[in-house]
């Protein structure tokens, strides 16, 4: 596969291939980061962290898992590091920070932030599970692999999330 060849070349130290790899995957990284934090500028930061971590740890990718799975794990770990670093500073998020651009986007961003907040409150791993399964459309097995838990744990989390969020948010939702 093309991507895999690119990864191999990048692993052997070819900067051009690595740049091409970044071009290919930056959007994925950024999209996930954005959904993870709900904030464009923070997503930029997380994405940059992830790109830099990718530079450092690409050599460790062993082609055992799908590259995207490996990448998601990397982005999640960066996002969590980033989150911890933010929390250590323990600042109060100013409400003006929330909207990113435009009215519609602002409303969406606020709702996303609320949703993310609720997911975090549901427990560890819930947010990541929801983002991977619903946001990225991965299977429970893939999400389990990325998060290092069993597939049934993912199923259980999805079930819990659906129960808690859809009961309060969307009573009319049909079961998927």
């Amino acid at each position, binding site marked *: 596969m093309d991507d895999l060849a690119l990864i191999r070349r990048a692993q052997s130290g070819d*900067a051009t291939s690595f740049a091409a790899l970044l071009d290919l995957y930056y959007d994925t990284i950024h999209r996930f980061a954005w959904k993870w934090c709900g904030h464009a500028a923070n997503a930029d930061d997380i994405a940059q962290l992830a790109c830099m971590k990718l530079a450092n740890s690409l050599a460790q990718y062993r082609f055992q898992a799908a590259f995207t799975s490996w990448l998601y794990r990397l982005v999640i770990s960066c996002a969590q590091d980033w989150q911890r670093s933010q929390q250590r500073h323990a600042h109060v998020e100013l409400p003006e920070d929330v909207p990113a651009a435009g009215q519609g986007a602002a409303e969406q961003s606020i709702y996303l932030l609320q949703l993310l907040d609720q997911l975090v409150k549901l427990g560890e791993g819930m947010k990541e599970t929801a983002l991977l399964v619903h946001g990225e459309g991965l299977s429970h097995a893939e999400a389990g692999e990325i998060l290092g838990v069993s597939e049934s744990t993912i199923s259980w989390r999805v079930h819990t999330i659906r129960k808690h969020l859809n009961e309060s948010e969307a009573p009319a939702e049909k079961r998927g």
Partner: protein
Amino acid sequence: MKDQGIENYLENLATPAPDPEARERAKRAALAEFARAQAADNILAFPRQESSDETRLSRESTSYGSASMKRFANRGWYAAAAGIGVLGLGLIWALPNFRKYGQELSHTELPATAQLPERPADAAAGASAPEGARAPEDHDSSSSPAEPLAEPPLPEPPPPELESQPPANATRHFAGDDQGAVDAGRRDAANEAARRRDESGQSEVDARALADSRQRESKSLGALADQAARAPVAPAPPPPQQPAANKGTGSITVTGMRRELEKSKRDKSEAAPVDAITAEDVGQFPDSHIAESLQRIPGVQIAKDEGRDRFEHFEINPVHRVADAPVSTFSADVDTASYSFVRARINEGSLPQNDAVRAEEMINYFDYAWPAASSRETPFEPTVVVGDSPWGKGRKLVHIGIKGYEVDRNEVPDANLVLLLDVSGSMNEPNKLPLVIRSMELLLGSLKPADTVGIVVYAGAAGTVLEPTPVREKDRILEALRSLRPGGSTAGAEGIERAYQLAEAHFRKGGVNRILLCTDGDFNVGIDSTQALKSFVERKREKGVYLSVLGFGQGNYRDELAQALAQNGNGVAAYIDTDKEAQKVLVQEATASLFTIAKDVKLQVEFNPATVSEYRLVGYETRSLEREDFNNDAVDAGDVGAGHTVTAIYEITPAGVTGSVDEPRYEQNRDKDAAKRAAGSRGGRDEYGFLKIRYKLPGERTSRLISEPIPLRTGTQTANVRRDVEFSTAVAGFAQLLSGGKYTGSLTYGDVLEQAQSARGEDRFGYRSEFIDLVRRAQKLGE
């Protein structure tokens, strides 16, 4: 948006396109990082490497603007010279920002390191600290190494791209009405966030953020690094040892072999009387686990992992004074899961956790020669044997044994079985799904051709794998079983409901209707709360569909839930760890496991205060009932299958023998009066107590009663019964030793072994020999 549900919302969430500027920035940073990583890979074992890390940090510092420069200038940077001469493996990683805490640090960490006598601090710090701490152009100017943190900050012009941005506090508005304002605001927010992070010591991100400005300086810094490498520093001064958590300021970590050696020496000299251990040491030890290495440090004890298997906690039944509480009530228990679990644990090389040891389940694991009842109407004829207690001088053991009426296999009504199998990824272990499949194959062999078997799986790919199929079409069932694979992609949350639907759709009136749940502890069957699950199972039980639970595997086993569900479902909970166990539960005891001959079996013993002063029930802690529950038919209790044996052992202290609980000082007369009155009542002089058993026949709602006195001297028993009293006593002793030996006095595993060996008997299936082997292993483990 809100009425979409989370799945659709997240799926359709429009993501804003990434800011191209941020994208470029990230790319540049990553490429720089990539180049650096490659360089690090290529230039190994060369002192220069240390310096190049150094260089990187310095470069980063230049890209910060004045605020960050101050911080870098304030930072005590000792590490560079430290690594010189070290094999080039060292990695220096810095989280700077000491501006805020610099003062504090200079009073805490720094003196501690500065006091080390063997360190030529002056030379080292003079050569290294300033160079990292200030702009590269200044590398030749020296500063006092004693107070590098107090060094005045060097002003540095901010890089142009930061400078061009609006001042931080000028654009705190995000109206969204004007694109320019928004952009400015966003940039400002990023800037602001960067600044905040700087202050919190998380400047690593930002330090690398503007990688392009590094490039410009890399050349001069390379030269600088060379110079640093040549600095005349022979012994390496240790870097400041700062835990990363320290006030959120920052830390410098140096790794590598040489560093470890240095550190080991230093740690040990500083650490007395507490020993220290380094990663290098750990690597040298023959230990298989880091915890074992840690245990080499005096005073460090690592408790052995008792597993994450969950058991209901209980307190061992205490000694009761007959004068205070003459009546003991409990429910029958034919489960044997505890014994299998204990066995698996011991065979693995560790003693089980206390709560995993349920004495009654261990005792009832074995089949005893109690005489079976002769009619289905009165399914029990209790056997009561009184003998001396091997572990309490002067005390007696009262054995109460019942054996359920044995139903001929051809008399058993047709069965409608639905197997509810967990096929989640966690079942992918040799002793899980493959064993489940083999067990079910064994079960098929003990079913009648007219019986039907359906298969529902959950947790992986959900759904009905096999509609109820008669056992005479065995091949179809086997094929379905063998096609099962752990894992899968779709979620199956409705597993248990589907299994019950299937069982109800093929309900056999007057027959056996049972769900057989096989799991490794994942009860993600579709009903989340334990309580809801229990009451669901209970409601279905009322409709005539029962549930049995077979547990597999270790590590995640939820015994308490398995027990609770099986109890609510009028079924057995068994734990299957080996093929042999599967054979026992599903072949030899298949009829017993599947066909219930009595429901809600409760036992009650009233002790006679004239002849008994104290009593203690061995086991049945999780099955104890209130005295008043005995006659209340609404209270659920254990069920007994065809041919099941249930054995209960009381240890009693006959009146006149010194007991373990002191007599009351003020109510002695009351107790004596009670004893006197009891002695005058019917049977009061020649009975230890009175046994009552309540049970319901299948399909009946009112209980029936069996009662029998416990005589002071029981009549002569057959040799088999005497032997089995011995053997069950040995098992009871073993169980009590495993759970702490609170009441077993000086009893040892050796005593248990001897007793069990002498009472092994014919042992057709080898279970008793296995028990003896288990005691031997426990004896070794307990030493």
